[in-house]
């Protein structure tokens, strides 16, 4: 049995269809990322699984139960991190964690140890209002996991969190999955997905446009006939094109795309040319798309020929 199952889910707000036939499953011990641009329907999907919204069509189940009908029973086993807010402005960090621990009594994490684990021991007596955005996110995460959930729904756990904080969030998420929890998190940050997710479901405008492991997604589609590299901005692409015998384009300042098969010879020619002109090479990628490429291809403005 899947820990989380979504089949043909449709959710509307009045005349707006926010989720339009989404299906996926998440299993115990795995981290599943719902990846999508703003307004894709990630929060709506997750909040339906949390029992806050009623599906207009389709079926959702969590641990085999119905999020609305069996809500009371599910609360013991489900950890929730809302996209924002949800905490008393005047409550202190440690106080909040102890309060939530009491809700799950006696089976819960040690609040002080958890506070330490999310890097908030030094601000334990600060009120929520006084915490920085990234600290609030980490406290929110701690509140979601203090009850040792079997399923965790984390809505944008790394939004507004600095690199050090992200490391902490990732570690908590990986530990959770390691202990057998099914983790469903949402994000629009690709780097995050590549680092933390076992499986990805890419959603856009309420529908699933791709799903699989990060490796499957990046190796799918046509082989990539290009080389991408980073170098100082403003290179003379015409000259370089002649040297390489292929079209060269500066995609964004300092990032270039060479329209050629990524053969070792082509790469050698490129690096030789750069060396000859005493130019630094900031980045080089041949023949493998990143998740970002996949994401932009599937969800970018060009991906909707009929739209707009």
């Amino acid at each position, binding site marked *: 049995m899947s820990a989380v199952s979504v089949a043909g889910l449709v959710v509307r707000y009045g005349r707006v269809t926010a989720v339009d036939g989404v299906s996926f499953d998440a299993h115990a011990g795995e981290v599943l990322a719902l990846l999508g641009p703003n307004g894709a329907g990630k929060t709506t999907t997750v909040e339906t699984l949390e029992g806050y919204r009623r599906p207009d069509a389709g079926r959702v189940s969590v641990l085999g139960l119905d999020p609305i009908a069996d809500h009371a029973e599910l609360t013991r086993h489900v950890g929730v991190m*809302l996209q924002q*807010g949800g905490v008393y402005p005047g*409550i202190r960090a440690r106080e909040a964690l102890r309060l939530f621990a009491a*809700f*799950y*009594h006696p089976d819960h994490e040690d609040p002080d140890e958890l506070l330490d684990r999310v890097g908030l021991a030094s601000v334990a007596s600060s009120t929520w209002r006084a915490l920085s955005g990234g600290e609030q996110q980490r406290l929110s995460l701690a509140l979601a996991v203090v009850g040792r959930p079997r399923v965790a729904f984390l809505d944008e756990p790394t939004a507004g969190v600095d690199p050090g904080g992200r490391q902490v969030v990732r570690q908590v998420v990986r530990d959770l999955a390691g202990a057998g929890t099914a983790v469903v998190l949402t994000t629009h940050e690709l780097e995050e997905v590549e680092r933390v997710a076992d499986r990805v479901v890419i959603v856009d405008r309420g529908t699933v446009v791709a799903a699989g492991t990060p490796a499957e997604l990046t190796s799918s589609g046509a082989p990539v006939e290009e080389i991408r590299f980073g170098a100082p901005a403003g290179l003379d692409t015409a000259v370089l094109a002649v040297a390489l015998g292929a079209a060269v384009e500066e995609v964004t300042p300092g990032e270039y795309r060479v329209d050629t098969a990524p053969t070792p010879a082509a790469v050698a020619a490129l690096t030789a040319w750069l060396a000859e002109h005493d130019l630094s090479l900031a980045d080089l990628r041949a023949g493998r798309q990143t998740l970002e490429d996949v994401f932009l291809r599937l969800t970018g403005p060009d991906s909707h020929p009929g739209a707009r």
Partner: protein
Amino acid sequence: MSTTAVAAQTRVELALTLRRGESVLLTLGIPVVLLVFFSVVDVLPLPTGVTEAVDFLAPGILALAVMSTAMVSLAIATGFERSYGVLKRLGSTPLGRPALLAAKTLAVLAVEALQVVVLVAVATVLGWRPEGSALVAAGAVLLATVGFAGLGLLMAGTLRGEVTLAAANGLYLVLLLLGGMVFPLDRLPAALEAVARLLPAAALSGALDAALSAPPSVAVGPWAVLATWAVVAPALAAWRFRWE
């Protein structure tokens, strides 16, 4: 309902209330100042047959204190909790709604107990000699608390946080003036007095006044009004309350 959860939630509700300066001002500061000021400064009209201001004021100010806590303070706090998503978030914990309500009720009763201790002490210093039955008075306070809390939660559960703040404060002022708390009801124009007697504020000060006089009595009119509000207001709140 887990007692550990209710106890923890009650403790936090109480701590947060006492930590909010404006709520302490509203529930303790203002009643104490009104009680002292109008007992000492002889500007208020007194009801017929009363000679000492404090004898009229003490039951009324106790009623005011109950109203401040059970209605105004509860409404404002709950309204903001709703707009900050706190109620939504609590909804996905095992706490549960009955336990949350129980915790809020216990926290309100604890603050009321503190108010009674402080106000009775101050009134005693000012020369008040309460007679009558503390038990009957406590019964009236409990009944009124249910009605006031219903009104407070009705506002908190239907209006936006800032609107709740304004509405609760507005209602507080109206009920203070029409509540027989600082201004005797029988000095109001007859039509206004008739309306005022149907409101929970005047009913509570009337019931407390009767309970704390010798011999103590259960004032039928005020108790009937309190009982009606205690049924209608929570029912409306339960029906209309939106958690998000």
